[in-house]
C-alpha cells in the first residue's frame, strides 16, 4: 500500500502523519508512508485543503484530521 500525507508542514499535517504512522504500525499494515510537502505535488492531486490522506493515488481524507479509528477503517477496508 502506498500512503501519502499531503501538507505543507502545519501542525495539523504533522498530527495526521503521526496518527497514520501509529495506525499502520499497530495493525501491521504493509505500507510505505511518504510526506508530500511540495506545493506543486499537492496541487496535482487536486487537494485544496490540507492535510490530506492519499492511498494508492486516491484522496481519501482532506482538510481535516480524522480519528485514529477512522484512519484504521479507511486503511483496512
Amino acid at each position, binding site marked *: 500500500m502506498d500512503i501519502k500525507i499531503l*501538507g505543507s508542514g502545519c501542525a495539523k499535517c504533522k498530527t495526521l502523519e503521526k496518527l497514520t504512522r501509529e495506525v499502520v504500525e499497530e495493525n501491521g499494515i504493509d505500507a510505505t508512508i511518504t510526506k508530500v510537502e511540495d506545493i506543486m505535488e499537492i*496541487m496535482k492531486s487536486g487537494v*485544496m485543503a490540507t492535510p490530506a490522506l492519499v492511498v494508492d493515488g486516491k484522496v481519501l481524507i482532506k482538510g481535516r484530521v480524522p480519528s485514529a479509528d477512522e484512519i484504521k477503517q479507511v486503511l483496512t477496508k
Partner: protein
Amino acid sequence: MDWKKLIKIALGIAIWFTLYHYLQPLTDLFINNILGLQQGRHWTETLRFLIFEVPKVLMLLILIIFFVGIIRSYFTPEKTRKALEGKSLFTGNVMAALLGIVTPFCSCSAIPLFLGFVEAGVPLGVTFSFLIAAPMINEVAVILLFGLFGWKVAAIYILTGLVIAIVSGWVIGWLKLEKYVEEWVYQLKSENEEDREERLSFGQRIDMGYVAVKEIVGKVWAYIVIGIAVGAAAHGYVPEKFMAQLMGQSTWYSVPLSILIGVPLYSNAAGIIPIVSVLIEKGVPLGTALAFMMAVIGLSLPEMIILKKVLKLPLILAFVGIVALGIMIVGFLFNFIF
C-alpha cells in the same frame, strides 16, 4: 441517526444553559460566602470579575465553536469554489466574503486554496475577497467581542469586516492585477479532475464539532485567561486616560498609527482581545481599537510570506495597501459616529 450522540448533546446543552444562567450567583456565593471576602474592596471586585468572566467566555467559546464546527463540515473549499465559478464581479465578491466566514480555513492552506480557485477560473478579485474575509472574521474573534463588549460590537465587527473584504476584493479585481500572479500558477492543471466529495454521516459531523472545540479551545484558553486577568488588573491600576492621551479621539493620526503598529504584529484573535479590552477600558475610541484588531489578525506577515510563493510583490503590496486603507476608513468612521 445517531441517537446516543444526540442525547449526549441535548444533555450537554441543558447543563450548559443551567450553568450559564447561574454563573453570577455562583460567583457571588464563592466570593462572599466561601472565600468570605469583603464586598466592594478593590481586589475583591477584581477577583469577582475574573472568576465570572473566565468561565463565561470559555463556555461561550465551547458552545459556539462546537456548532460552528458542525456547520463548517457542510462547507468544503470544493463546494465554495464551485459556487464562485463564473460569478460576475460584484456578486462574486459578496458571495466570496460570506463564504469566507463559514468555509474552514487556516493560513497554512492559503496557497492550495488560492491555486485551486485560480485554476477553476474564479476571478482574482473574488479570490481575494475570500482570502481577506476568512482569517479576519473568525468565530473566536466574534465570540470574544460578544462576550466582553456585547452583541453590538460583535455585529459591527462582522459587518465592517465583510464590507472591507468585499470592497477590497472588488478594487483588486478592478485594477486588473492578474499579471502579478506568478506565471506558473496559470499553467497548473490538476490530474484529479473528478470531484470526489467526501460523504460524511451526521455522527462524523458531530465528531468534527468536538474536534474543533478540542483544537481551538485547547489552543486559546491560556490567552483568554491571561487576557481577562490583564483586563481586570488594568481596570484600576493603569492610570486612567493614559492610553486615551496616546491613542485618543483628539489625535487624528491614532487610527493610521494603530494600523501601522498592527500589521507587523501577528497574533491569533484570542491573543489580541486582551489588548483591545485594555485599550477600550482606558478610553481609546472603539474605531481605533477595532482598526488595530483588524490590522493584527487580518493582515499578517507570515501569510504574506506564504503568499509570496504565488504572488509577485506589487500584488502583495496592493493587497496590504487596499485592506489597510479599508480598515482605516472604518476606524475613522466609527470614531466619528461614536
